[in-house]
Each structure stands twice: as C-alpha cells, then as structure tokens.
C-alpha cells in the first residue's frame, strides 16, 4: 500500500485549474519533495491531502483512507506545517505546542520534554515567552514546524518548512525532518528551494501549472538530462584533435568543446561512468590529465529540462 496515492486528482477554482488530473504516489517512510514554482499546485495538493481542501474530482488517499470521504480519520494520521505559520495571536509558543500536542494525543509528560528540547534545538528558547503575534517570521516558521515535530505523525506535510529561516536554522530543521523519517514517518515536503529538495528528497515530484511532470530520485532525474553533467578537463596532449575525437566516442558523451589547446569541456550523461572511460582513453593516447572538474545539473536544470522553464521564472 502506498502511503499516499492520488488518481486523476483535480482542483478547480472557477475556470482555473490548480491541479489537473494528478496521478501521484508516495511510498511508506519516504521523503517526497514536491518541486515547482509558485502557482504550480504544490500547496493545493498539500491542502487536499491535509483535508483542508476538498478535491473537485478524482481521488486522494492517505494510508488507504479517502481524504474526501474519511477526513477525520485522515486527520488522526497527519501533521501539517503550513506555508504561513498559523498560530493563536495571544498565545505563547509553549501554549501553542502544548495545545497541539494535547489535541493530537501526545502524553503530557512526553510533550513537555519534547517541547523543551525543540525550543533549545530550534533556537526558540529566547522566544518562548513572547506572544505569537510578536514572533519574527523565522521564529514563527520554526514554531510551525515544531508542531509536526512534537506530534511525530505517521504522515507529515511540510509546506516550505524553511522559508524565512536562516541558513543554520534550515540545516537544523532538515536534520529534524530526517529524524522523523528514521522513526518511520512518511514525509511530504513542498519547496521551491533546490538545496532543500536535494538534501531531503528520497524522490522528487515536479509539478508545473497543476500538472504532474516527472517523479524520481534526485540522482535519476539529474541523470535523465542528456549531457547534463559537465566535465571540465585540463589535459597535456600533443594531438588535441584526435583526443577530442576519441572522447566523443565514449558512451554518454553529448558534446565536447575544445576552447583552448589543452582545455576540454565535455557535456556528458552520468559523469561517474564517463570519467573512468575518459582516463583510460587518455592513458592509451599518452595524454596527461592535469585536472578534472565535474559539475552536475541542479534540480533547477531538471525543472528547465522537463518544463522548458526555470523554477524562478514565475516569480519574476
């Protein structure tokens, strides 16, 4: 059984499709990252799975439960960190987390120690006595994520969990999300931050304008871009033209450029298998390798490859 499965899931606002016939699955205990620019349908999908929104048509199941027909049962399994932190204005962070823990059935003593640990780990200790309405954006966001971390749900939904959070805070939150996975949770993260996706994802699903584009592991998505890996070489050779010709024959080579006499730039698929073959050819051609620099495509490149647009294009 999939942890999450959608079939032809559609959400329409008037004439606008936020999601269009989305088929998508998440395996048990997997971290799935939804990647897409603003307006791609990520948040709509999360809100449907969180039972906050009802689909216009199609089906969505969480742990085998239909989100439209059995919302209360689904809610017992999930925890959500919303894109914008949701808190009671006149409550302090500890009150908010205590309330969340009590509603989600976390025993009081366990909740108390977990809340204290989270305050320390996520650097909310100094803000613990502030009212929610006085928290900074980053603090409110960390508090939002803390709700899920106190709850330890079977299925965690995190919408841009580190937006507005500084670099150190991002790393701390990512570690906590990983810990949650180690305890058996299935996790769905929506982001348009490439680094976050690369750090967390077991698999990435790319959405664009409400439609499913592609879903796979980060490695495979990158490898699927023909010529996506760039290998820059500095090689001493007396016959650069014949070496270039030989390199071009290696499986996975898309293009070789030879800007200067001893500098080559190879656009290849799967550099990890291309480089050993290249070194062998260099050895056979008595060419001496001075340096090798490999650049792999980013998820932004993946998005560009599959959609023809960049992740940030819609934000401009």
């Amino acid at each position, binding site marked *: 059984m999939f942890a999450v499965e959608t079939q032809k899931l559609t959400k329409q606002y008037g004439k606008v499709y936020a999601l269009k016939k989305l088929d998508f699955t998440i395996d048990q205990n997997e971290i799935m990252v939804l990647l897409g620019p603003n307006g791609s349908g990520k948040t709509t999908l999360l809100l449907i799975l969180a*039972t906050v929104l009802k689909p216009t048509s199609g089906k969505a199941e969480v742990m085998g439960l239909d989100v439209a027909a059995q919302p*209360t049962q689904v*809610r017992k399994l*999930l925890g959500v960190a919303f894109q914008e932190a*949701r808190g*009671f204005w*006149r409550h302090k962070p500890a009150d908010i987390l205590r*309330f969340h823990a009590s*509603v*989600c059935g976390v025993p009081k003593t366990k909740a108390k120690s977990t809340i204290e640990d989270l305050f320390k780990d996520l650097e909310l200790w100094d803000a613990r006595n502030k009212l929610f309405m006085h928290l900074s954006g980053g603090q409110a966001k960390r508090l939002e994520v803390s709700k899920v971390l106190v709850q330890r749900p079977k299925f965690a939904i995190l919408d841009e969990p580190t937006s507005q959070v500084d670099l150190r805070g991002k790393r701390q939150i990512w570690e906590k999300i990983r810990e949650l996975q180690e305890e058996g949770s299935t996790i769905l993260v929506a982001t348009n931050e490439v680094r976050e996706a690369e750090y967390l994802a077991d698999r990435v699903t790319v959405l664009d304008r409400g439609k499913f584009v592609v879903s796979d592991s980060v490695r495979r998505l990158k490898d699927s871009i023909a010529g996506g890996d760039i290998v820059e070489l500095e090689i001493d050779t007396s016959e650069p033209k014949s070496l270039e010709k030989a390199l071009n024959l290696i499986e996975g080579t898309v293009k070789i450029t030879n800007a200067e006499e001893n500098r080559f730039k190879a656009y290849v698929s799967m550099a990890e298998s291309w480089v050993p073959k290249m070194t062998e050819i260099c050895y056979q051609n008595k060419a001496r390798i001075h340096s090798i620099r490999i650049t792999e495509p980013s998820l932004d490149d993946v998005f560009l490859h599959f959609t023809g647009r960049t992740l940030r294009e819609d934000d401009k």
Partner: protein
Amino acid sequence: MSEIRVILAIARNDFSYFFRTKWLMAILLSLNLSDMLVVALVYGNMMTFEYFNYFVPAVVVMGLFAASMDTGRRIWLALREGVIQYELSLPVSTKGLVMAYLLAGGAAALVYASSLLLIAMLVLQAGAIVSAIMLLPFLFVLAMGLAGIAATLSAIASTHGEFFFAFQNVVQIVLLTLSTVYYPLDKVQNYLPSIIIPLVSANPLSLAAEALRQYTFLGLPIEIGLLTRILITSVPFAIVGSLAYLGALRKIQSEGKI
C-alpha cells in the same frame, strides 16, 4: 483521543483566548461596571420605580451578550489569519470544530457574566445563591445561542472585519432594544408598536433578565416555564449559528476561501 476530548481541548483553547484579550476585558468590564454602578444609579434617581434594582441584573445579561458576541470576532480572526485551516487539519470533524467554538463562546460568556452576577449580588445584597447557580446552565445555553448568532455574522462577513462589527452593532441594537433589558414591558409598550411586543416578550435576553430579577434578586421560587422558554428561544440561534459556521467551513474546504 476521542472526538469529545479534542472538541473540549479546542474549546478550552478558544475560551482562554477570550480571557487573554486584555484590551477586550478592560473595555467590557469598564462598560458593564459603569452601566451597573453609574448609569443604573443615576437613572434610578430619575425613574419613578426602583430602576437600580431593575437594571443591575440586566447588566449581567448585557455582559453575557457582549462576551458571547466576541465568539464571532474570534472566528473572524481565525478566518482572516488562516488559523481555521490549521484547525481543519486537526483530528476532529468539521462539525466538532463548530461545536467547540460554540461551547467556548458559551463558556467564556458564562464565566464572564458570572463574575458580573457576583458583583451584582454583592451590590444588591441578593442572597438566592442556589437560584443563581440553577440559572447558570440556562444562561450557558443562551450564551451558546448568542455565540451562534455571532458565528453567523462572522460567516457572512467573511474576512471583512468592518462588516462583522457593523453587523454585530445592528444585532446588538435590535436585540437589546426589542427586549425588557433596559425597561419593563409596560414601559416598552409605550414606545414600540403593539405588533412587536410579543417579540420583546419572547426575546431570550428579556427572559434571561427576567429570570435573574425574579429568582436571584427577588428570591421568588423558580418556574420551569420561564426557564424552558429561555431554552426554546436560545436553541434555534445556536442551531442556525452552527449551520452558518459549518457552511462557511464547507465553503473554505471547497473554494479555499469564503
């Protein structure tokens, strides 16, 4: 965790939100106490009947009304700040969430009104404490009904706060004017058309004020008939309010906003 426990936890949270809003507490208390200790006293000297004794119990009902109506403000805030989306993701049914808000509204108003009742009993040196305690459950149902009205208003007003407060003022004027909270029925009959008088008599605020005057302050024996009328007139408000708020939540779930 059972549904009821979750409902109670949400209700307790909203209940505490009411008392954490210090500016509101300050406004309500200062208005109600000035009504009780200044307005009633001054008017009492101008009236031909014991207006002070008549009006002080009614201030308890006015406090109950104002505190109940704050449920609508809290619902409106939850809608505006998106807290409602968070609450819709909690392990409780949507109907349970509506129930939690009405319970919280009723409980917060009851606790607030009880403090006014205590002050009023001290001021008027009323001793029917048992009667006062027996009235509380009925005042709670009335407060839930009024919270239902407030929920309806906030659902209609959507995220437009100014509309909510405008609607609230209209309801306040209508419900309090068409009641015996300020004046006895024979005085009201002098300035309102006779066709409206049955409404004034049936107004749950009139009934509650009357029950407080008769049973708590005059010490008359409690009549089930009057208490039943409070229930009969309050419950429809609570039901309509629940349905309106439920409708608003369903709309959020289908359209993403109201």
